[in-house]
């Protein structure tokens, strides 16, 4: 019977096709309209967790003193801080820039009333120490800074202090943030005076002067 219909009644076939497609559309519509909450809930749950990372630039590496000599391969011979400091007892009296000598001569130092051993670890000169004596590696220097500079650290953590690059929208890409010591020299943390760039040449600002 159906074969007969197919063969002899083309218009009927088209009618069937239209009917079938309408049914299909109706089903699709029903699916969409009956479960909107579910669909929306699913997409939100899928998208939310994909966040790119916020990377803080690494702090300083553990310092090495350049001895000025080269090895057989031509590479500079460096010495760890502890090379000298393990054989010399710390002298707490030498705590201003003028007092420093040998490798430390000429250090520009202006950081409040802190002395060398406020941050440098007398028990292990290849590390730093917190106020409570706990050891801190050089790359983790921000922990040390934030002991005193709490408000700066709070602002930093909320993105309102410290330069950054990358994405404001972490669902789209990562962000790279400066470390404290990228901008502030730990021995002289005040931001240096800089020469401004690019004075404007436009016409309005000429009148805005004075």
């Amino acid at each position, binding site marked *: 019977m159906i074969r007969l219909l197919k063969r002899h009644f083309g218009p009927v076939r088209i009618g069937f096709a239209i009917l079938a497609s309408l049914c299909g559309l109706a089903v699709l519509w029903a699916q969409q309209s009956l479960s909107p909450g579910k669909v929306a809930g699913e997409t939100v749950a899928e998208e939310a967790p994909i966040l790119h990372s916020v990377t803080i630039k690494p702090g300083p590496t553990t310092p090495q003193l350049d001895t000025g000599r080269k090895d057989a391969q031509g590479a500079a011979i460096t010495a760890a801080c502890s090379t000298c400091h393990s054989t010399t007892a710390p002298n707490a009296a030498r705590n201003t820039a003028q007092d420093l000598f040998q490798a430390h001569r000429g250090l520009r130092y202006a950081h409040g009333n802190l002395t060398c051993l406020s941050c440098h670890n007398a028990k292990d000169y290849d590390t730093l120490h917190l106020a409570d004596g706990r050891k801190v590696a050089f790359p983790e220097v921000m922990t040390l800074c934030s002991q005193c500079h709490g408000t700066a650290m709070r602002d930093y953590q909320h993105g309102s202090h410290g330069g950054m690059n990358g994405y404001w929208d972490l669902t789209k890409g990562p962000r790279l943030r400066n470390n404290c010591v990228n901008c502030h020299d730990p021995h002289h943390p005040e931001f240096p005076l*800089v020469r401004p760039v690019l004075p404007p040449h436009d016409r309005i600002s000429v009148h805005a002067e004075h």
Partner: protein
Amino acid sequence: MIAFPFTQSTEPPLMNDPDPDKPGTPCSGHGACACGASAPPPSGESHGDSTRRSVLKGIGATLGVAAYAKALAPLTELTQQTSMDEFLQKHYRELTKEELATVLARLTRETKEQYGAEVTISDPKPPEGVKFGYALNLSICNGCRKCAEACHLENNHDRPSHQSYIRVFEMTKGSMDFEKGNVHYDHPVPQPDKYYMPVQCQQCELPPCVDVCPVEATWKERDGIVVVDYNWCIGCRYCEAACPYHARRFNWQKPEIAAAEINPDQSYLSNRIRPQGVMEKCTFCLHRTRNGRLPACLEACPTGARVFGDLNDPDSEIRWVLENKRVFVLKEELGLKPQFFYFFDE
């Protein structure tokens, strides 16, 4: 231009005029001349008259052609820079997807032809549910103008004029009126008795620049950014006059940029190279920010004085600043509701 053909064509009539006084002519100046019988209108004088008329016609035609050419001259100059497609281009918001694609392709081609640079001109749309906001920490800003420089480079500004959407005012401590600030300081910064206030488009909620535009070439987008259709702008500069923050700039000249310095990442509504004679303004680098990236001025800031983000996101940095810092807006009394905030650290 006009005088030249005029003098040329006036010479013959001056020669012709004394024709009747020529020696050979019998009726020269004698009142009772018999040859007058031939009657002035028909033959003898009719010949002279027609010459005079045709000459006058000639002058008229020459003048007409000259005036016409002069009147059309600006149009020919225009067509040197303006293609017919550009002339007939619709308003940005009336363009269909296909038309927009054609426009972007044409602009890309023109940039190649005029500046010799391969660029990509996109048209990122406002992200759903996002409202952009900006905050600036005046306690940290040291006035280095790196932001203005970054803007200059990022947004393909005219090089000779040092154009930038950001002006950094050197302010006397205690003063809050940036109209009294100095933008031309050229000494190491920061000076101890000064602070520095960068000012750019404040992306007002109620932008007066949009209100005054006679051709609706500028409007506020869904994400809060006030944009300009550079191809629709007629360059009347009303918006520049209306902006209380001096945030709008005019392209007095066709921007000059070396091909190697052109930022190839461009968009229709932001940093594509603007034509001469149109207004431009800060768009919060929408070609970057609408794709999730930070604005160029923020990335250039060496002190981290700038905070950018989505005002609709309660966890964003900008919201933390608004909720925890004592923020203020410039010229609040005007009631324009800027989306750009300033604050000092405690």
